[in-house]
């Protein structure tokens, strides 16, 4: 089926070349980082994780969200998702690929990455994260590929794939739970030491992933003859609505615990992120943009009249995605490091090289996504012309 990615319109190839160019710049930037060391980034002794780890955290959520299509379709026989389940699975593949790359570029000694396998350490959550992420990538690759191949032939997927599909459901939950456990089990980091971290991660994941998927569905409909279906998109919209409410509710719980208890250590990171601490307030505008976008998106999403208008829905989904990207792809990680263990504030901002590497990895993700979607769409366009198979 791969050959389907090798033929495309002028627009398709232009897009591919743009992505390759950005990837090239990102790769050259990575070589510079490899040569100089991670000091080329904005990270420091005090804020020792930055953009890379926060992108990774955010994208694990996007990857996990495929389950929001798999559950309705395979467990509840919600037929309208039949055509787009593959889009969710392929989005998961692209997202996990980015996750793995973001971890890799964050390593100080990338050549030693295999030490995680050579010296397996089950008490380290990072070990488990490496296991579940690679497992999830594998599951989605075989499930996506097998179901699409069957589709192309106009036959139902083979029975042996069923256990993998069912396995992908708890597995999706596991990747984001384990990722939350990276943070939620560290003594001394008040901002992260919260039992609702994994729940909040899942809430934000099931909002941001399907929101991106809706935007991708609109895009697919625009650039191809494959229509994901109005009802499917609306159903996804409802999922985004519920999940975004759950996410904001869980964030609200964090605020309550911090500010009603008035325990300084619990309040400080929130104060730093949303109001500034000791005169440092670099992230305050971003966090408020995130907050405003979250509120605006919820107003649009909760009202069926606005949600049903596709332009409004697209706007709300973009708002959800950006809001959660700021919240999780930036604030969550940095907030855990501010103030530092000595209650001093060191601020963080990504460097240019760091930004270019990040952009490069996102482009690799989009390249993977483009190629996989191209194949899926080609199959869908082909089967759409067969009248009575579905």
């Amino acid at each position, binding site marked *: 089926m791969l050959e389907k990615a090798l033929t495309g319109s002028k627009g398709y190839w232009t897009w591919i070349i743009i992505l390759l160019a950005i990837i090239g710049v990102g790769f050259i930037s990575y070589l510079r980082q490899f040569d100089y060391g991670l000091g080329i980034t904005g990270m420091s002794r005090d804020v020792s994780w930055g953009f890379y780890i926060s992108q990774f955290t955010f994208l694990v959520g996007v990857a996990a969200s495929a389950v929001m299509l798999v559950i309705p379709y395979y467990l509840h026989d919600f037929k309208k998702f039949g055509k787009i389940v593959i889009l969710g699975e392929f989005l998961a593949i692209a997202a996990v690929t980015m996750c793995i790359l973001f971890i890799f570029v964050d390593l*100080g000694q990338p050549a030693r990455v295999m030490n995680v396998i050579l010296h397996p*350490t089950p008490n380290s959550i990072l070990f488990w994260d490496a296991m579940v992420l690679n497992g999830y990538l594998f599951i989605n690759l075989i499930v996506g590929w097998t179901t699409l191949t069957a589709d192309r032939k106009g036959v139902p997927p083979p029975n042996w794939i069923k256990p993998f599909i069912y396995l992908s459901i708890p597995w999706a939950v596991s990747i984001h739970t384990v990722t939350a456990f990276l943070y939620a089990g560290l003594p001394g980091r008040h901002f992260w030491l919260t039992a609702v971290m994994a729940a909040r991660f899942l809430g934000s994941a099931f909002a941001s992933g399907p929101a991106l998927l809706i935007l991708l569905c609109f895009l697919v409909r625009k650039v191809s003859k494959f229509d994901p279906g109005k009802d499917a998109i609306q159903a996804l919209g409802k999922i985004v609505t519920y999940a975004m409410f759950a996410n904001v509710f869980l964030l609200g719980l964090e605020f309550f615990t911090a500010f009603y208890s008035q325990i300084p250590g619990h309040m400080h990171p929130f104060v730093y992120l949303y109001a500034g601490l000791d005169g440092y307030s670099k992230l305050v505008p971003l966090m408020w943009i995130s907050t405003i976008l979250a509120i605006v998106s919820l107003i649009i999403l909760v009202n069926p009249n606005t949600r049903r208008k596709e332009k409004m829905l697209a706007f709300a989904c973009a708002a959800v995605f950006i809001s959660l990207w700021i919240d999780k792809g930036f604030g969550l990680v940095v907030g855990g490091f501010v103030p530092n263990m000595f209650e001093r504030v060191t601020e963080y901002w990504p460097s240019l090289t760091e930004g270019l590497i990040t952009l490069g990895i996102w482009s690799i993700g989009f390249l993977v996504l483009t190629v996989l979607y191209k194949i899926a769409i080609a199959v869908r366009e082909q089967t759409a012309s067969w009248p009575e198979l579905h």
Partner: protein
Amino acid sequence: MSVNRRKFLKIAGASALIGLTGTITIEELLKSNAEASVTPGPDALTAKRWGMVIDVNKIKTKEDYEKIIHACHSIHNVPDIGNTKDEVKWIWEEEYENTFPGVSDEFIPDGIKHKPFLALCNHCANPPCVRVCPTKATFKRPDGIVAMDYHRCIGCRFCMAACPFGARSFNWRDPRPFIKEENKEFPTRMKGVVEKCTFCSERLARGLQPACVEKSNGALVFGDLDNPNSDVRKALSANYAIRRKPEIGTAPSVYYIIGGNEHA
């Protein structure tokens, strides 16, 4: 040439044997290496759980602090990069309220409030950095020292996120150009790995006290926390001492005597 059944079995058996012995040899090698690194020499100082007591009042002048810090950083080839972003440090000064956040009281003698405290790795009995390391590059030795294998560290910095004491430094860049005078008896580090205080395990193995203790004029006491007759235990039974963030359960092995008396 066709391989018959007999021949096949022979080859398979031989390969299995080579495979097995190969594994054993490697295991033996690893084992002897691991043992060698912790086998004490004839003069070595040993303990069940090494600990340190810092009598804050006994360190008086700026020179006192500098002497202690320099002793550590110079023999361990700790680079002086000159900016806080890339900074590497094993032992350094912090103010009281920064060393003991949440404990610092409003009304305490000025002499304590603005007095520098020495901060270093606490060699916790229950170290979160060891728990999170995905490669066992940081590990707890049987004598309680939390040690690092710079050759195994992949530089993921999970240990830095996990350490509640900010004791760990990462080599954000090649540290070697920033080492003023290299001590050839101690390894330098490369970029991309984490490092921290080792309680001078290399000196203990040769029967020497940690460098900071040696230069402290008795302000720093080092010994076995498991031995009631050790210097550290004597200091702790004669004085009220506190530890950093005891409430989070990492069980630090570094104690601070705040209002020390003359018997310590």
